[in-house]
């Protein structure tokens, strides 16, 4: 299994100038790992919509990489987004999913059919150009640069342990002012 916080550090090191969209526990952990917070957009409300918002950003900014860091519980709430994304297939989109089999942010309740769903297969069959699944940290580490550089859309499922305790890390709530500041980078 891959420690989710360690996975964040691997992604952070490889991100370059990519925009990163996060939600729920991934939002809190990513905030600790990120070294370019001005390019990060965390969704505080509307659980499950990171994949959709990141997709919109990828369409708007086709010359810049857009990374989504999703959770398995979040993606299950918005599974149709895999098909929506694959339909327009933005080459600059990389969609990570931290699969821990639980709703960590609400106390560790199992997701439906926990650990029996292949998210990488769902993404591949929805039509993503590339789809990966990693359980071994070294294998993920060795592939990350290739994942970042190849044309997508690319899906990456990271198999992580089920830790029921809420993440000790916190991140600020996204405010309307921070939303406007983020947009000003692109207009």
């Amino acid at each position, binding site marked *: 299994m891959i420690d989710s916080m360690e996975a964040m550090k691997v992604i952070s090191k490889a991100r370059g100038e990519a925009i990163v969209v996060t939600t729920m526990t991934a939002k809190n952990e990513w905030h600790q790992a990120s070294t370019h917070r001005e390019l990060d957009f965390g969704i505080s409300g509307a*659980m499950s919509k990171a994949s959709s918002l990141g997709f*919109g*950003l990828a369409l708007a900014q086709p010359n810049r990489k857009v990374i989504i860091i999703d959770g398995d519980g979040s993606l299950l709430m918005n599974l149709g*987004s895999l098909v929506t994304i694959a339909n*327009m297939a933005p080459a600059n989109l990389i969609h990570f999913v931290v699969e821990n089999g639980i709703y960590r942010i609400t106390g560790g309740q199992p997701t439906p059919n926990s650990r029996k769903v292949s998210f990488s297969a769902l993404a591949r069959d929805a039509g993503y150009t590339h789809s990966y699944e990693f359980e071994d940290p070294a294998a993920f580490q060795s592939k990350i640069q290739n994942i970042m550089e190849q044309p997508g859309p690319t899906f990456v499922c990271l198999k992580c342990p089920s830790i029921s305790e809420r993440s000790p890390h916190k991140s600020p709530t996204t405010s309307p002012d921070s939303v406007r500041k983020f*947009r000003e980078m692109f207009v």
Partner: protein
Amino acid sequence: MTTKVSSLFAEKVLAELKKCGITHIVWLPHSENKAMYETVLQDAGITLVPVCREGECIPIAAGLWLGGKNTAIMHQSTGLFEAGDSVRGLALDMQLPLLMLIGARGWPTPGSPPSPYSWNGIDSAATFLEPILDAWGIKHHLVTNENETGQISSAYKEAQSTSRPVAVLIAKE
């Protein structure tokens, strides 16, 4: 005859959207926007972004807007009911100046036949539309014919000036 009138209506709606500088429409088809779909599809100036479920529309529109684009969403009132958490958590909390074109299913207009979804002459999709928008504090304009499409520009300007979503209820096929 119906198709011709609907196309004229669609062309007038499209002209309004272009006047507003809309670059993308995130949408799901419904009976009120069939002609719109065909008209927009033939126009190279606006990109249609199709979704699987209406709840995707607002977050995709939010991403497009954050990335510097000028976006509208288009789906039926039933989809608005489904998309409630995106309305709350993104459009309202993020203060998005979002133009929402909502197909007003079952809206009673003079001369129109009763909604096929009505029960005892009432389509609950129409009954609950305005009260729900009012509860969210979302201003709304009504368009029932070709002569009222100017409401779209008004709604767009209102969304921009107030940094809030504004809805246009399209009560015409």
